[in-house]
């Protein structure tokens, strides 16, 4: 069991999915010979052929639109959108077509399409390469939205997403692509749409997903080590739509304090929904309002500013301090 990077784990998960079901296809820009700009589809075309690993024309609406047609024909397409900022040309196909077709067809027509999107910042990229558009999709009924944070989850979650009969928007934390973990392919994963407590704690609950899980864990470690010795519980949400609130509410009722962290702008980001729901469900348990740490409400800035823009350990701890000041 060698340590596996997150990028490689997705690759392995895709390979497994393709081996298990001949109907699984991979399609997108540069996913073939190049293996994707992050090499997530590396080697798949070589092993499964051009009929199953398809370099498409450069048109995102076309990619998702034809994937819908392929799904109607019985295939399970996994589309790669090269970067977060390039998903918007496909927006109509995703929110009006893919999301609604099962409902519109009165449940007769499943749409097992997975859309992989490397998301988030922190890699020093130029504009449109560092965005966190998850709320645009989570607000859309009919879609399921998940984000993995580590290689083990990445491997199992992509497999679960591919076999799911609903459309899944699958967010991959691009700046964590190169982080490694031991991956036991024979392990039994939790259900796709479940949140996980990744560090237990008693004093405050930190909710995070995707790239921010590691940041949250670092903050928790720092908080434990600091003078106050605060014990933060960190939950990796994993699923953004539907949310798995069971462990979240249990935790917040116990800790009485909650901070949500994401890279996306705070205004109408996932944190707003979590704050609203948690407050409603735990009104009498909360010692402080649910606080949100996120990207600022600006377009993603030039990369030399991203360190300041993105939530980091210090910004999380600052919010924790605020939560305790209430």
């Amino acid at each position: 069991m060698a340590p596996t990077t997150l990028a490689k784990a997705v690759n392995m998960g895709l390979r497994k999915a393709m081996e298990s079901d001949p109907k699984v296809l991979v399609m997108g820009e540069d996913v073939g010979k190049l293996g994707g700009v992050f090499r997530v589809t590396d080697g798949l075309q070589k092993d499964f052929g051009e009929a199953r690993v398809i370099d498409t024309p450069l048109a995102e609406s076309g990619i998702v639109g034809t994937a819908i047609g392929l799904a109607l024909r019985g295939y399970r397409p996994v589309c790669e959108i090269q970067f977060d900022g390039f998903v918007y040309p496909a927006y109509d196909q995703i929110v009006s077509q893919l999301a609604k077709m099962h409902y519109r067809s009165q449940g007769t027509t499943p749409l097992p399409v997975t859309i992989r999107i490397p998301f988030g910042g922190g890699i020093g990229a130029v504009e449109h390469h560092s965005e966190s558009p998850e709320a645009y999709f989570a607000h859309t009924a009919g879609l399921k939205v998940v984000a993995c944070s580590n290689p083990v989850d990445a491997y199992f979650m992509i497999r679960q997403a591919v076999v799911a009969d609903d459309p899944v928007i699958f967010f991959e934390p691009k700046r964590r692509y190169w982080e490694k973990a031991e991956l036991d392919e024979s392990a039994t994963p939790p259900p796709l749409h479940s949140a996980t407590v990744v560090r237990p704690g008693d004093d405050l609950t930190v909710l995070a997903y995707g790239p921010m899980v590691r940041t949250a864990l670092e903050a928790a470690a720092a908080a434990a080590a600091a003078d106050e010795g605060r014990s933060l519980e960190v939950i990796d949400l994993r699923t953004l739509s539907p949310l798995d609130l069971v462990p979240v509410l249990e935790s917040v009722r116990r800790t009485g304090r909650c901070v949500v962290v994401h890279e996306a702008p705070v205004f109408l980001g996932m944190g707003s929904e979590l704050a609203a729901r948690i407050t409603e469900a735990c009104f009498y348990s909360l010692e402080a309002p649910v606080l949100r740490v996120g990207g600022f409400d600006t377009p993603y800035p030039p990369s030399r500013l991203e360190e300041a823009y993105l939530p980091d350990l210090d910004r999380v701890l600052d919010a924790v301090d605020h939560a305790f000041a209430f």
Partner: protein
Amino acid sequence: MSVASSLGGQAGGGEVAGGLMGRAAPETSSVATSTTAGPELVQLLTPEGERVSHPDYALDLTAEDYRSLYRDLVLVRRVDVEATALQRQGELGIWAALLGQEAAQVGSGRALLPGDYAFPTYREHGVAYCKGVDPLKLLGLFRGVSHAGWDPHDHNFGLYTIVIGSQTLHATGYAMGIQKDGTEDAVIAYFGDGATSQGDVNEAFVFATVFNAPVVFFCQNNQWAISEPLERQTRIPLYQRARGFGFPGVRVDGNDVLAVLAVTRAALRNAREGNGPTFIEAFTYRMGAHTTSDDPTRYRLASDLETWKLKDPLERMKAYLVRSGMADAAFFAGVEVDADALAAHVRKGCIEMPDPDPLSIFDGVYAEPTALLAEERARFAAYLSSFADGPQADADSAAATAGGR
């Protein structure tokens, strides 16, 4: 007449050969106008009902084929007229009439084999009929009781699609799937003249040509996109769009059911044989309003309508049947009886269509249901139950129904 027997008519019995289509479709640089189609129009039946031949598109039909094509035209128009009346009487929220486009739809619909899949807009009532969908089921969407009354896979006939052009990509993807399966099915994507301006439609041309997908792009150029005339979408004839993507385009008289049948068959055969997509422009005219909500007197001339009335797709078929002696008065009377029966079926079924249960709002959002939505549903059910004799009598009784689940 049993209604069911009037449906499901697939391509007529005779072994019919369409012209072999080369890569290079006839092209001219003439600029389209909304009333004249230009010399490039494929026609097999003149507006006067004269049967003519075309070098590329032979069509060898039996008398029974001709009669049944005519019958389909009449039935489809009758359904349309009935639905329009139902809307006027408040039974439908809206209706998008196909009036004038019967030949384009029946001609192409009849060219389809059972395994061929059609992706419609919101106006393909005639194609639906040819694919065996009970017209009554089409009314659900317009009455507001469902988004679609049929299972697409039962008929190889997709959901009605309102977002202009988006279905052309689904059609292309489906055709790519056929290719992977190695079967001889083909796909037809319907869209309007206005739709040709949408990015999606042009992306569909790119994907279809690059992957050489077995799909026929069937554009009903009815000269209008709501109030906008063709000139707002293009400055050349629409069928020529295809040449920009390297696939054949052909303009057919959309009011000539024979020509449409022949041209569509040829294009489908081309697709089946691995020669990729074809663009068919069916040159026709929207004789009615865009939908029952529209008022075309605001933007178009009555005289245009008069011109097009002379090209009516039913009249010319009738004239041909009479002139050729293939049909007599008894036949025409029989068709009227069938049409009346179908219309009565549609009317009765429409009026009796029950309103859906309020809790069905939550049905089918996902193939694999979620706890969050189940909770929301349960809360709403409880809320509905809370009205003992509340102001919401409707919701109230519905909740009672729902309680039985």
